[in-house]
């Protein structure tokens, strides 16, 4: 299958991209293309214009930003996996990025593209959510920061405006008191998660902070709030509450009922793995 026809412009800069997006009713950003092009090939979408931001090299970086690590939105998954700063300060992110798709996808796909796609079955949205990360976006009005908790609005829907371009992703540095886990349960290695569970736990003896992010358990990536609270309260089986407030889909990889069961198992295992020390 070949995509329906579209126009194509190369953005030389973020500002140029914003301007190009403003010039057409039905324009879409193209970064690595690994979320967008498969959709275009099956003709599920037919934008009038693709604005290619893939050549803005300034948006590909990983750098130390004080208590956070800043990742350029066009940093490819492959480069996230190999980034020493992330390996040192927030190894959860490169670990999860290494489980996206397959090597070819990771060579092209970008962190910004994955987050802006807003796929509730994506790996990185739940990771960002569990880490309480944030992103910068640039639009006609300038730059604004969106917290992960505000970013994901619905299936394939984010808080980004039609003319906004994501430029940077920031995640906190984890410390020696942090433990983490990402369990991606899937039928085949290349598949999206049937259910994915991110756990980030801080504590030395007792638990001080706990965040549990869920993949494929609702219209957006979710936090397992009830589990988090039960953990902090020292309750005996916090994982049993993992499906509270979720609305998992039913599809050929699993029914909603099965996903509710599975998420409880995976959260228990993730919390065991994430236990600090």
């Amino acid at each position, binding site marked *: 299958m070949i995509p329906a026809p579209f126009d194509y412009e190369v953005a030389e800069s973020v500002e140029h991209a914003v301007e190009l997006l403003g010039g057409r009713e039905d324009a879409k950003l193209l970064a690595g293309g690994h979320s967008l092009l498969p959709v275009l090939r099956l003709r599920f979408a037919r934008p009038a214009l693709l604005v290619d931001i893939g050549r803005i090299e300034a948006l590909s970086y990983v750098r130390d930003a004080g208590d956070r690590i800043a990742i350029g939105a066009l940093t490819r998954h492959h480069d996230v996996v190999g980034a020493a700063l992330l390996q040192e300060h927030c190894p959860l992110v490169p670990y999860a990025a290494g489980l996206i798709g397959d090597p070819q996808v990771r060579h092209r796909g970008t962190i910004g593209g994955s987050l802006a796609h807003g796929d509730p079955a994506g790996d990185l949205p739940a990771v960002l959510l569990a880490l309480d990360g944030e992103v910068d976006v640039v639009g006609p009005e300038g730059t604004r920061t969106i917290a992960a908790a505000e970013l994901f609005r619905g299936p394939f829907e984010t808080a980004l405006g039609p003319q906004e371009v994501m430029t940077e992703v920031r995640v906190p540095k984890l410390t020696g008191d942090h433990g983490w886990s990402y369990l991606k349960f899937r039928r085949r*290695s290349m598949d999206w998660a049937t259910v994915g569970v991110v756990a980030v736990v801080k504590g030395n003896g007792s638990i001080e902070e706990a965040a549990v992010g869920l993949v494929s358990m609702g219209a957006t990536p979710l936090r397992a709030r009830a589990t988090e609270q039960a953990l902090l309260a020292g309750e005996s089986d916090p994982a049993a509450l993992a499906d509270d407030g979720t609305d998992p889909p039913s599809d050929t990889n699993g029914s909603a009922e*099965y996903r509710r069961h599975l998420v409880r198992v995976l959260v228990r295992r993730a919390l065991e793995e994430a236990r600090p020390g």
Partner: protein
Amino acid sequence: MMVAPIELEIGEAIGAPVERKEDHKLLVGQAQWVDNMRVPGMAYMAVVRSPYAHARITRVDVAPALAHADVVAAYSAADLQEEWAGSLPCAWLPTEDTKAPPHLPLAADKARYVGDGVAVVVASSRAAAEDAAELVEVEYEPLPAIVDPEAALAEGAPLVHDELGTNRCYTWRLDAGEVDALFDEAEVIVRGRFRQNRLIPTAIEPRAVLVQPLPANGEFTMWSTTQVPHIARVTLSGVLGIPEAKLRVIAPDVGGGFGSKLNVYAEEALALGLARRLGRAIKWTEGRSEGYLATIHGRDQWQEIELAANADGKISAVRARVVAAMGAYLQLVTPGIPLLGAWLYAGAYDVQGYSFECTGVFTHTTPTDAYRGAGRPEATYAIERAVDALAAKLGKDPVEVRRLNFIREFPNAIAAGLTIDSGDYDAGLDLALGTAGYKELRTEQAERRAKGDPKRLGIGLSTYVEMCGLAPSKILGAIRYSAGGWDTATIRCLPTGTVQVLTGVSPHGQGHETTWSQIAADLLGYDVDEIEVLHGDTAVVPLGMDTYGSRSLAVGGVALYFAAERIVAKARLIAAHKLGVEPSQVDYVRGRFTGPEDSIALKDIALAAWTAHDLPDGVEPGLEASFVYDPPNFSWPSGAHLAVVEVDTETGNVEVLRYIAVDDVGTVVNPLIVDGQIHGGIAQGIAQALFEEAVYDDDGNLLTGNMVSYLVPSAPDLPSYELDRTETPSPTNPLGVKGVGETGAIASPAAVINAVCDALAADGVTDIQMPATPERVWRALEEAKR
């Protein structure tokens, strides 16, 4: 003149792991795929397909597509009606009253499955054809659909073909022995009801066809991604009304088939019809998601099996009943596929009573047809699962029950009515158990259970026998198959020291060029590299029955042996003449004739036969011989497969830890190729057991309609395979070969599911439907807890 046959010796090339001659071009990107090909004036075809499983077609308007600047032509079914001299072929109507509804390349009145073609567009580029196909306006009146074959038999179910008044296509029976009496006398009866999940063959090369017409001569050349160029020529000439001699079909390099390209498809007929009508070359290449709708599926059966046994576990009789989905239409051999397993529901076991019944049923789904194993994986699954159930019922080890029932005398006339050529089932089982370390595995399994490990260990066996090498023409005739089961070989010894071998079996990845070269090299004393194997072009090899059913070597390869005999017999006359002795005084050993004093090479005789300056009286010039071989029996590979799985009782996930396969495929010509065939078959069988299923919703929408949702496993999803073999040459052919293309796929689903059920036996689980998805495993455990 007639020459007496002689027996040739098998030499060094047969049995050697010769590296494949096919590989170099494939490894450097020089393969000749149909989709690579371009000819002058070529236009691209796209098919407009029904989005409804069942709908009345009330209007088709191709005018908007015709308005597209790059469009050459666009047609509805009605526009093309005159192109067709007959229906698309179904070559196997198993009973006199089998219902075979008309099946034209485009649906006119009604769409009967999602993907049924309703219009066709021709444009100057691939992209424009896809663009224009979207412009065709079709109005549908959706109707209720039926997708389950058992439900389709119920009173009041929506009819796939109204004029038939029923969805039942046929019922076929085979009864042998006093089955009812044996069941009455039985001390133990076990029953199983199993689902054969619908599978999508998924050859990695999608289908493609290119037709180049030569209007002045009324000739057509068709390149097609087909397993069956010869059958395609015979049948398509009938569909189109093109004289067979005016149609040349070429299967160039073909990227896998697994049964899906053992067919004659609407798109081939459309490309021919449009090439004729427009007088220009027409090309079509299937998109993968399109193919998941428009290329045949496999399996989709419900099976019931009953075993009658005594208290020791000795089985006396087997009763099996199958309801098999045909899909919406009959493709080339749709109705016959489940019947290829009809004789195998007693497996490798000696029984006195045998009864089998199969009902074929139309449903609003993509037609089913051959998929690797075709009928035999289904039969093997049913009997191997039932034997495990019998062992469980008696509290015996499944190994013991198998041994108690094995057939041990060969040839063996089985109750079902055919004769198994050779085998040694104990030997295979011994090897498999030894390789696996069966006792140690049982110990580890018990230890895991004892300590409450949520990850259970399971060990599953499948001791199978299958019938392949299709087939004796007489038997095919008796079961109402329309064609013969013979095949052809021609050997042409060229004057300059090389040989052309022409084979009627057209490969698509099996390595025939290498294997046939090995056989010819051995028998005729040439180097493997001096043999050139030609195939897959009806102008080069006019006669053949093509490649399917693990038949190539057991039929086409044996034809090659007999053609070699004819070469040697003729060459002996010339050799004797040259050596000045009587033919009876000349010995032949691998390429050289030796008389009492002198000797002469076959190669020199090839030159002498070509110059023809000095040939014995009555001997024709040239050294060429052909043979058409019709096998006297099927061939019967067998073996023992053993799967070791780990089942996570919390998530339901199944991991295959080890897979051991011991196969007896008769004489092995090339162990590299044989092992490769077994690897691939096992992978597909594990895929059936754990991953793959074509799922329809109640409205007949295919929910697994692309490679994201239809789960073909990749490298990290599959284990390494531990192979071994036993070898009992088939006594029915001089090479002793049997067939290996399907054994892996036939044996493995049962081994894997037996292992999964074994893992969970102590938890009270007795069966899990294929594919044993994590959810199905979890549900089975939940069910058992209640």
